[in-house]
């Protein structure tokens, strides 16, 4: 494979939007590397609807959302190489990849990382019990059921009320399985409210909040799963055991950005997001290397992935064709204890745009509240929200004009509930 101006690692929603955006902004020599046989990434198995309300102002299924971007990509001259695995990226932007045609080293002037994320597994939460068949992650089950047409069980307990777990509760119910319970260790669901209504309530599936799975019984396949109520430290409370006779336990216990390649390249990662630390233009600590989508932080809506990826695509074009941004950091964004992270983590000096988008997630539920951005002394701007929940990403646009008023070079973001 020949060298290229811009290489994009991953052909899911982030990679697709980044490629189209970079092309539209003038980059002509773009190579998109995809490990699967077809483009679209995780969207191909997300056959439910609810995608695109923000971006396309209509409700699409995952494959439909992907198809729109694949169609846009077809209008460009982006070279797509699928069924290809990137093994290594060096800090001087050489990509090592393999496919059945051979081993390829590709020198790229710029790289956009869009590798997505993976699911946390049983090991991450050390569930006791046997290690029999019938325990799988919700995403793996989703691929089996929706793309390959296999059933993963008949009587199912789902641990984790994240969106994938909720969506799979409905899918498996519709396909004839019995979903006995959805179990969530936190006192609130990390999934969207609408999914609790239309995936659990519609099918009469009980949601056990502040509960977790404490035992798995079964020699060859799951025979029974025991759940227990947990205290405020998430420790099981003796005497609260409930047993479910079932053949399957699905795990929807979180997603982790897949940054093995970023780590190998020497890119600094943010322990809060598990993704690269980036500037407002999605540039990582290696100049010319950008990141977007779930490799950067786990998103709740693909629409936000698209916007972020377009930003990365445009920034790569600016880097390649116009003036690269200096690798200096003018402002660092610090989050208060109630906020689990922010993306970006830092801002360049002299940002040309009128405003910069900042994503963050809150750690707990907030009723009517204000989001405050300060320089440590003065409030620079404030945003109001009716309600905020940990399952949902929050986005604010910081007017760049305000930054000039900031004393020092740290911006603090915090949330406070408006007293009733």
């Amino acid at each position, binding site marked *: 494979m020949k060298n290229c101006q811009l290489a994009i690692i991953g052909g899911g929603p982030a990679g697709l939007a980044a490629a189209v955006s970079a092309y539209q902004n003038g980059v002509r020599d773009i190579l998109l590397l995809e490990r699967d046989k077809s483009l679209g990434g995780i969207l191909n198995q997300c056959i439910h609807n609810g995608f695109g309300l923000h971006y396309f102002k209509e409700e699409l299924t995952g494959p439909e959302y992907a198809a729109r971007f694949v169609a846009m990509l077809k209008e460009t001259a982006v070279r797509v190489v699928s069924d290809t695995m990137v093994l290594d990226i060096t800090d001087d932007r050489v990509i090592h990849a393999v496919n059945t045609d051979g081993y390829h080293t590709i020198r790229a002037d710029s790289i956009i990382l869009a590798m997505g994320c993976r*699911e946390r597994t049983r090991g991450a939460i050390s569930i006791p019990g046997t290690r029999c068949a019938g325990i799988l992650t919700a995403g793996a089950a989703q691929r089996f059921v929706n793309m390959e047409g296999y059933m*993963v069980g008949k009587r199912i307990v789902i641990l984790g009320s994240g969106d994938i777990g909720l969506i799979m509760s409905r899918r498996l119910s519709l396909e004839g399985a019995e979903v006995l319970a959805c179990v969530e260790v936190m006192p609130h669901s990390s999934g969207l409210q609408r999914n609790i209504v239309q995936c659990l309530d519609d099918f009469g599936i009980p949601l056990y909040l502040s509960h977790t799975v404490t035992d798995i019984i079964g020699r060859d396949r799951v025979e029974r799963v025991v759940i227990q109520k947990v205290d405020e430290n998430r420790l099981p409370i003796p005497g609260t055991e409930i047993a479910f006779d079932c053949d399957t336990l699905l795990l929807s216990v979180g997603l982790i950005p897949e940054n093995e390649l970023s780590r190998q390249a020497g890119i600094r990662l943010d322990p809060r997001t598990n993704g690269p630390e980036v500037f407002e233009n999605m540039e990582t600590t290696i100049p010319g290397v950008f990141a977007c989508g779930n490799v950067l932080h786990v998103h709740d809506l693909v629409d936000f992935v698209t916007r972020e990826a377009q930003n990365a695509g445009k920034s790569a074009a600016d880097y390649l064709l116009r003036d690269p941004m200096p690798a200096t950091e003018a402002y660092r964004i610090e989050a208060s204890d109630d906020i689990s992270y922010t993306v970006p983590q830092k801002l360049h000096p002299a940002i040309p745009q009128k405003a910069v988008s900042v994503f963050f997630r809150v750690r707990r539920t907030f009723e009517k509240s204000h989001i405050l951005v300060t320089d440590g002394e003065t409030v620079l701007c404030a945003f109001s929200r009716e309600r905020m929940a940990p399952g949902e990403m929050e986005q604010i646009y910081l007017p760049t004009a305000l930054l000039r008023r900031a004393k020092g070079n740290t911006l603090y973001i915090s949330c406070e509930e408006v007293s009733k």
Partner: protein
Amino acid sequence: MQDVIILGCGVIGAACAYTLSRYDVSVTVLEKSNDVANGTTKANSAIVHAGYDPRPGTAIARLNVEGNRMMEDLCRRLDVPFKRIGSHVLAFSEADLSHLQVLYERGVKNGVPDLRILTGEEARLMEPNLSEAVVGSLYAPTAGIVSPWELTLAMAEVAVRNGVELILEAPTTAIRQEEDGTFTVTTPKGDFRAKTVLNATGVDAEAVCGLLGVHEFTLTPNRGEYYLLDKSEGTRVRSVIFQCPDENGKGVLVSPTVHGNLIVGPNAEAVSGADATENTAQGLSFVKKQAIRSVPTLSFRENIRNFAGVRANHAEDDFLIGESSTFPGFFHLAGIKSPGLTAAPAIAKEAAEYVASRTPLIPKAEFSDGRRVIRFKSLSEEEKRAVIARNPLYGRVICRCETVTEGEIVAALQSPIPPTTVNGVKRRVGAGMGRCQGGFCSPRVQEILARELGIPMEAIPLDQPGSNILTGRTKEEYR
């Protein structure tokens, strides 16, 4: 009629098969599981012990030290991952320090080379992540780590290639000694007859011996639970870190694995039998608490898998190796607890000497030793290019976490002991061993298995028969 039947194909059975396959004797191995290395062999600490622990004069001491000496060469020949990384036994108190002295003296008597007692500072210089509370260590440079299931598989493969017959899914249901002194072993796969029987059935050895109608020894199955941490923790220590044994047992170890992970465990708990391999909340929390004493910075957030294994502990503090007192020709290889993995090659040598006392062992003219495996991940760039050019399937990565290619999986399926399960593929090539634990690759491994074995996806088990991953097709069962 065979010369020898080996019951069980864990590390001991496989070592015996490999050793005997050099000679002109007919050997059948009967394994109860659908794969080799599927009992205690696959679920232990994977340590090649130096040999200072056992009491001098015991079989366990002699075989440990001899096994340790044999292991490196054996692994090189069979292309099995092995690393001689050394070990420390940590002392946290005066009492521990005097115990280190006891171990040191035992080690010297047992013939363990190069043992040294270090101060806490010296130990921390070698292992900077050790606790400040460590006041000394017994350092044994000859200790190592190995992949127990790959070792077992390699020995079994070479044995099969050299004419040993391996029958899987053949648990022994009855044994009787005929009038001519030969034995008939009954299994669901048929009756097998041989002059000599080696009983290497691990935790089941007492029950299998009992099928002859005698009770010659007692095993007390004992479970140990483990954490396996992600490679990001794999260099937290560079050698095997033991603790001084105390009233809670031999202590919890922390060690790198040959695959680059970090293993932490085990506890010790008496259980009912070989099947009691479940993890428990108490067991795991004990392991965690103990391990942090040695290495306080361990990050259990990086855990990717828990597992448990059952030790075939023997009531007396030694291996039980020898001929049945009632049935000449029936040879016990029982009570092979730790360091059984280390001792395996030496135990097999003794078993072969016993066989030689009953059937002359004449070396085969055409014995073909050794084995080579392509591990794509560990090849150089040039080698990778070459292997893909030879076979394009080596260019298709199936397991992304461990970089395992379709070429490696297909090669395993064409090996002398082909896997039939997802876990079988995992043990041979490492697919699914990584941080996503098969989330991405297990369906693709299943597809390859189904394709190569010519059976439907739904029929592929995770492990034992009945452990199918899928329960049917959508749109077909629920009409």
